[in-house]
């Protein structure tokens, strides 16, 4: 039995009440919530890529990636896609929500040490990647050059704009490449899909790990480009999504083969995914 550093002491299925201390409107349909315990502490200490179960009592409960944490808070970003996420978007600062976690495995922060990192995000897929980006900056000496490639449908759909345009470009030995599918009158950056831009940027597949997350169709084509550029599937790391209820590998629904995404995932290398049944 692992000590799961869970918010809820001896029952991993019962959440702890926390409060939302800050809400950031990232895009018209994505908000970021900063959450802390009622006594002002950090609910738990997640590793990059780990998940948290966030619940609105009386509405529902769902698993989201914990995108960042600070001294006394954690953050998650939620896109409006259904009943529960709509309800999240109606919250005001100060509202109490249930939190349990952290769940799942995390990005391989140790095996990536000493390597250059290429982070690729598409749409809300930057959310899980962001936790590793922040981790890498916090442990800057452990990692080589960092490239961040991010694409969204339009300039209005770009998430974490402050990080993308202000914070991250200032970090040493770091380059941020942003692209949009369709520009608008104010957009001066690159226009085009992620796979094309990726090939244009011509990253060398030497001593470099790729962390990749986004909608399935983007993953598919980006992976094709990466393989063409000479990256191996072992070096491409991604996260999976499945419907989840318990978060601790009991309720059964998030299995792919004998693996549970909530327990053995959500982080897998592309090589590991090849080993699993094609049922995603």
């Amino acid at each position, binding site marked *: *039995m692992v000590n799961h550093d869970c918010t809820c002491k001896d029952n991993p299925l019962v959440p702890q009440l926390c409060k939302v201390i800050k809400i950031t409107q990232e895009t018209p349909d994505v908000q970021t919530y900063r959450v802390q315990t009622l006594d002002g502490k950090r609910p738990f200490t997640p590793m990059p890529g780990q998940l948290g179960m966030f619940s609105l*009592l009386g509405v*529902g409960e769902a698993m989201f990636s914990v995108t960042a944490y600070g001294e006394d808070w954690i953050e998650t970003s939620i896109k409006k896609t259904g009943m529960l996420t709509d309800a999240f978007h109606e919250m005001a600062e100060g509202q109490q929500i249930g939190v349990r976690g952290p769940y799942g495995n995390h990005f391989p922060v140790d095996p990536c040490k000493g390597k250059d990192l290429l982070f690729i995000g598409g749409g809300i897929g930057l959310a899980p990647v962001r936790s590793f980006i922040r981790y890498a900056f916090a442990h800057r000496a452990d990692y080589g050059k960092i490239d961040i490639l991010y694409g969204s449908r339009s300039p209005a759909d770009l998430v974490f704009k402050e990080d993308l345009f202000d914070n991250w470009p200032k970090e040493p030995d770091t380059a941020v490449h942003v692209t949009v599918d369709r520009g608008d009158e104010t957009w001066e950056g690159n226009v085009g899909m992620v796979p094309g831009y990726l090939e244009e940027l011509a990253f060398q597949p030497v001593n470099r790990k790729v962390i990749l997350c986004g909608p399935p169709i983007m993953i598919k084509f980006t992976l094709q480009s990466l393989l063409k550029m000479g990256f191996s599937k072992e070096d491409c790391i991604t996260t999976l999504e499945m419907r989840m209820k318990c978060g601790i590998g*009991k*309720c*059964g629904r998030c299995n792919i083969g004998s693996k549970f995404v909530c*327990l053995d995932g959500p982080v897998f290398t592309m090589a590991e995914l090849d080993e699993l049944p094609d049922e995603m």
Partner: protein
Amino acid sequence: MQLKRENLIPALRLLAAQGEILVPTAVDEKVSKFAPWDGSSAPDLALVNTTLPPKDTLFPHQEGMYRYKTAGEPSLEEIVEAPARILFGVRPCDARSIDCMDKVFLGDKYEDAFYARRRANVTVIAHTCAQTGPTCFCDSMGLSPAEAPSADLLLSDTETGWLVTAQTEKGEAVAALWKDLTAEGGEAAPAPACTLKTNMSDALAGTLVSRFEDPIWDEVCHACLGCGTCTYLCPTCYCFDINHEDHGGEGTQFRCWDSCMFSDYTRMAGGHNPRPSKKERLRNRYLHKLAYFKERYGQILCVGCGRCVGHCPSHLDITAFIDKAAERFGEGK
């Protein structure tokens, strides 16, 4: 030690002081289940597999997890319920199913507190099979109708009663309780053999996974109606859903049985469903029973109780599937 038939009711009366006794009970002409003992009549131990398995005792069909309030000062209060219970007359297959559920709920990184609390207070008294039913096939799944190694206490049929074998500390406590009612002697009746046989093997489990795209799944799923009968009557199916019942400002979070045969089981918020049709769902169910669970926990998740075979509306038969696959993939025993 032997417990004579005439001592059964006194023995149950002694047990009743330790907790609620659940015995195989016919609810009506079609349905039987483990229900509280009435305190006076001899339980019907000849019932070959109750319609509903005993898993409800440890993993209730519906179980409150916590009560919450959202009006005023929000609050959460965990629901703790773990009555002392004795499952009496559990068949070897059902005893094994509890063993399977223990592997899921008590281990694998997290302990499920709700299950663990109930489990600690449940004593399992198994009873060997004097006869098998037409759909029983436990001896093809590595079990024996005469053994239930994971039960706390085993009752084996003799001419005049039952041999009492304590197999755990809990079982020894029961045996000690019964010491005035039991005596030396008695010989266990020979174990009956299952009439339904199937060709399950370790090799086949592995092959099935590697034949994920084989047309066999398409062939076998046609007759399936996509109902949840097999999963709800299965003693080892442990999937659950979590939801709440809200009464405006307060409510209860609960979990209840769920079935992998239903479309909304894996459907995600955006509408994408990784298992969109009954082919994928049936494949997942069969593979979970026969292969995935073994990969993860080291044993097969099918105990051969035959409930799914006996109750499937379309008369689908997992043993027929196993044999068909074994024949096609050349992985017989």
